[in-house]
């Protein structure tokens, strides 16, 4: 293996980033094909219901958009931190806290018809999510506590807080003791995006976040700070940017986006606060952020792809009888292949002499 080696790239490689994604998708499809034949399903039937059937109806398209919304929004927020090497893995908890804050308003002002209710809920949710992530920022900047660990643990605490609130203070008094809140009034809900589907206007927040993130990254000095702070803390400090500011910005933005995504759920498809608030959006969004190469535009595509896997998985479950575990396996494989092939982004494969060896 002396002739094949890797060299670190010195400049960015857009082409390689795209190539990595394409390789990952194809490798996942091949692995998926093997998997489907193992569980005894016809490949064409599964691939049809997984990847094409969702596009055959407005309902399917609406479902993909509905699912992509929170993934897109959260992943954009997380990527801001990730680009600065701030590893927030607690978006799930920030989403929950955001949803709780918005629900408190929706429940407290039940019956209100004011058009200000929904904006107020968004504000409350965004702030609450940011505040929850802010705890981790404080712990990191004041106590030097690793944010990977604190954000994760804050997530578990948020989940218990949710369980407590829906089985007590925020429970629907007429709801037969079942742990869920009242159904929100119309003023507390996002309007439909495509009539007849569940996709709602909260998706626009995610798209706006993508545009803002892109503009910041490409044009503004603040984005430059985070990029610099991420790639080389030394250089960042030399340029006068403090690490603490990167940590605060990375976590607060990530938390606010996750909190807003939580509002999108309770004021969207759920229409109430309940125990099963998120099917792991906070964790799936981490995958989306990486799959999108931590790039605002890449994340848009990654979010849609991930949403397609979820929705296609449910279609395949209903139409082709595919066990729902295969969806989970699919997601894992896709990210694994992406991570493996993204070595192409940071390194160049060189065929020739010289020494550096990639050993395992």
């Amino acid at each position: 293996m002396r002739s094949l080696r890797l060299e670190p790239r010195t400049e960015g490689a857009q082409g390689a980033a795209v190539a990595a994604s394409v390789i990952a998708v194809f490798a996942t499809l091949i692995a998926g094909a093997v998997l489907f034949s193992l569980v005894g399903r016809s490949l064409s039937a599964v691939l049809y219901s997984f990847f094409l059937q969702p596009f055959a109806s407005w309902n399917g398209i609406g479902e993909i958009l509905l699912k992509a919304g929170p993934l897109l929004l959260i992943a954009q927020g997380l990527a801001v931190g990730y680009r600065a090497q701030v590893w927030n893995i607690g978006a799930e908890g920030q989403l929950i806290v955001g949803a709780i804050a918005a629900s408190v308003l929706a429940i407290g002002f039940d019956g209100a018809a004011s058009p200000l209710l929904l904006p107020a809920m968004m504000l409350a949710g965004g702030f609450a999510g940011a505040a929850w992530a802010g705890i981790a920022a404080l712990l990191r900047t004041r106590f030097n506590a690793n944010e990977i660990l604190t954000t994760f643990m804050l997530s578990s605490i948020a989940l218990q807080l949710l369980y407590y609130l829906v089985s007590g203070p925020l429970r629907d008094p007429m709801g037969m003791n079942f742990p869920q809140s009242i159904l929100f009034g119309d003023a507390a809900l996002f309007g439909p995006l495509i009539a007849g589907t569940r996709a709602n206007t909260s998706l626009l927040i995610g798209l706006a976040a993508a545009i803002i993130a892109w503009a910041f990254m490409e044009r503004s000095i603040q984005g430059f700070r985070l990029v610099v702070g991420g790639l080389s803390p030394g250089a960042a400090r030399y340029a006068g940017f403090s690490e603490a500011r990167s940590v605060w910005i990375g976590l607060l933005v990530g938390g606010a986006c996750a909190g807003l995504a939580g509002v999108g759920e309770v004021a969207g498809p759920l229409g109430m606060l309940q125990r099963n608030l998120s099917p792991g959006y906070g964790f799936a969004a981490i995958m989306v952020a990486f799959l999108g190469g931590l790039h605002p535009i890449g994340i848009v595509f990654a979010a849609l792809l991930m949403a397609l896997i979820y929705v296609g998985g449910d279609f395949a479950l209903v139409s082709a009888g595919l066990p729902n575990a295969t969806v989970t396996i699919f997601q894992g494989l896709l990210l694994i292949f992406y991570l493996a092939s993204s070595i192409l982004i940071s390194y160049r494969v060189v065929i020739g002499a010289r020494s550096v060896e990639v050993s395992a």
Partner: protein
Amino acid sequence: MMLLKRLVLTAGLLAGLATAGPALAQPAKIGFIYPGPVGDTGWAFELDTGRKAVEEKFGDKVTTVVAENIPEGPDAARVMNQMAADGARMIMLGSFGYMNDGLKLARQYPDSAFIHASGYKLADNFGTFLSRNYETSYAAGLAAGYLTRSKVLGIVASYPIPEVIGMINGYTLGAQKTNPDVTVKVVWLNSWFDPNKSQEGARSLVAQNADIIFSLYQDTPEVVALSEELGIYSISTSSDMKAYAPKKYLAGLKVDWRPHFIDQVQKMLDGTFKGEAYWGGYKDGAIELTSLTPDLTPEQRKVVEDAITAMKAGTFHPMTGPITAQDGSVKIAAGETMADADLLAVNWLVKGVETKIPN
């Protein structure tokens, strides 16, 4: 968009999956959604037994589609929407938490029929089904009262919803009938399914002297298996679980959805379906006390069987006063029976139950 659609349809044809428009000759598609995996026993298993009975009874007039292990969250709606969009003429929603999404869908598809487990909201094309498990609970309580040595009965329970509270009350009243000093302790798991915690809950009850454990709406048999290992009696919900405790098993509170499902499917096929609140009890053949332990004396056994016979005949109601609540207030006066409407919304435990309803 058109191009994309055509592409998709072509691909569908290639895959040999294209479905023709709904024609009358085609079998009626019926969707079933379960909150947990089907397995060999428990809640989803009994619902699936109902589905199989429907398939057997109606043959090629129906086809069924199953989605198991669908959490009561935002994704459940997609699965049921997909079933409806796929042309399902009837959908069985197997968990309480599917209620609001199911109702929304029922409004969108006024020509499809929906039946929903254990809910309390109805519409013209949206019915509910529930079983009167408080009746079998009462019968099991009679037997438990005879068999307990410690006079402490333990219950591992899911959520404090009215159905569960009614079962705890029925069980306690039955046990007090045959053993007035009995007390009942409850561990709330706030889950339909948490095998580790339910076992730990059972062990904590045993540590507090309970010698009979009632596994109330835990969908897996781990509490029954554990009780066998510890050498104490157990009672299971939904399914008979004697296979998991061949030596010491008090009884199973079995439900049988087959008659109701067949009836509803028949009405759907006839075009006479109308959302109704079905509450099946002994009278309807919807519930049964199975594998009652042989450790009862013939006299004791007769007491249990007589109560069951009376419930079947409708001459005896377990919730007959005087019934006193935990706080000492008399809820049902002597000679009166609890109305169905009150029982469906019961939010108090009877005296003798030591644990409170959380919050």
